[in-house]
């Protein structure tokens, strides 16, 4: 008698798993980053508007920053752009740009047309730095603390909602603590 209940029991377990997975499904396709809580991957890249300078992690240590990966070929980046300008205006935290697999001249043109929200822009022509940061879709935005640890990653467009619910609280908590 008992063993005939096994299929039903197994199905009940399966149904529970499926129900939970439905709850999680909007996040499908967005992979959690293994970098959270770890040191930001080191990089040393040329700067967009100044061919004599390079930008590296060391330059950025000691303060919070948002690392935003973008490209002129990326449609969502254009949509996210106005909000990045707002972040810059608020002065809450500097936004460092990573121009991913892009053309320098086009990038400069784009920024002059739409505005430049970035404090500095590092240029990753080959895509190596992007791979180091686990980037797989543009735009992506990382929040890095003064100790150089990646605190949060947003995959996809950085919306005001995500900013308010994910970035601002972490910034506030971090700054309050230090």
């Amino acid at each position, binding site marked *: 008698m008992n063993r005939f209940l096994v299929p039903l029991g197994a199905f009940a377990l399966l149904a529970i798993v499926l129900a939970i997975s439905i709850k999680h499904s909007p996040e499908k396709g967005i*992979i959690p980053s293994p970098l959270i809580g770890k040191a930001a991957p080191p990089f040393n890249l040329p700067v967009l508007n100044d061919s004599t300078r390079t930008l590296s992690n060391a330059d950025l240590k000691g303060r919070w920053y948002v690392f935003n990966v973008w490209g002129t070929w990326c449609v969502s980046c254009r949509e996210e752009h106005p909000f990045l300008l707002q972040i810059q205006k608020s002065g809450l935290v500097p936004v460092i740009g990573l121009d991913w697999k892009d053309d320098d001249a086009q990038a400069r043109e784009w920024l002059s047309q739409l505005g430049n929200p970035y404090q500095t822009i590092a240029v990753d022509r080959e895509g190596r730095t992007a791979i180091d940061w*686990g980037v*797989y879709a543009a735009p992506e935005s990382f929040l890095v603390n003064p100790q150089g640890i990646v605190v949060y990653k947003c995959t996809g467009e950085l919306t005001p909602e995500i900013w308010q619910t994910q970035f601002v609280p972490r910034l506030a908590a971090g700054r309050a603590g230090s």
Partner: protein
Amino acid sequence: MRRVLLALLLALGCATLHAVDTTELSDPKLQARYIALTHELRCMQCQNETIADSPVGLAADMRRAVREMLLAGKSDDDVRNFMVARYGEFILFRPRFSARTAWLWLAPGVLLIIGAIVAVRVLRQRSALVGQDNEPLEEDISRP
């Protein structure tokens, strides 16, 4: 959001186009390892394809990274660890054997053992019943 994502993937050519990777490393052993590794790693944009087959730029970049690591003398595990450190376990098509995945890898073997036990029990039961029924013996295998 999903609709946009799907449209984007289609525009990128995921699943409709594929990559033809003309890399040929001079050492045939390295080439074999390169092919094996690129078929084990998932493309993070066309998530249903390996980086060997995916037509997007990211896949080409990742193939280049694998190539460079192999030429630099790294082992297969080094390459896998490199990718997992950056993208997580999701990037491997072969789940690595660990405490978390043990159940998955051992499942077929365990099921086989359970199946054998069940088979033995049923056979014992049924062989004992053979002499006892009065059924006409139709053993002709011509009637399946």
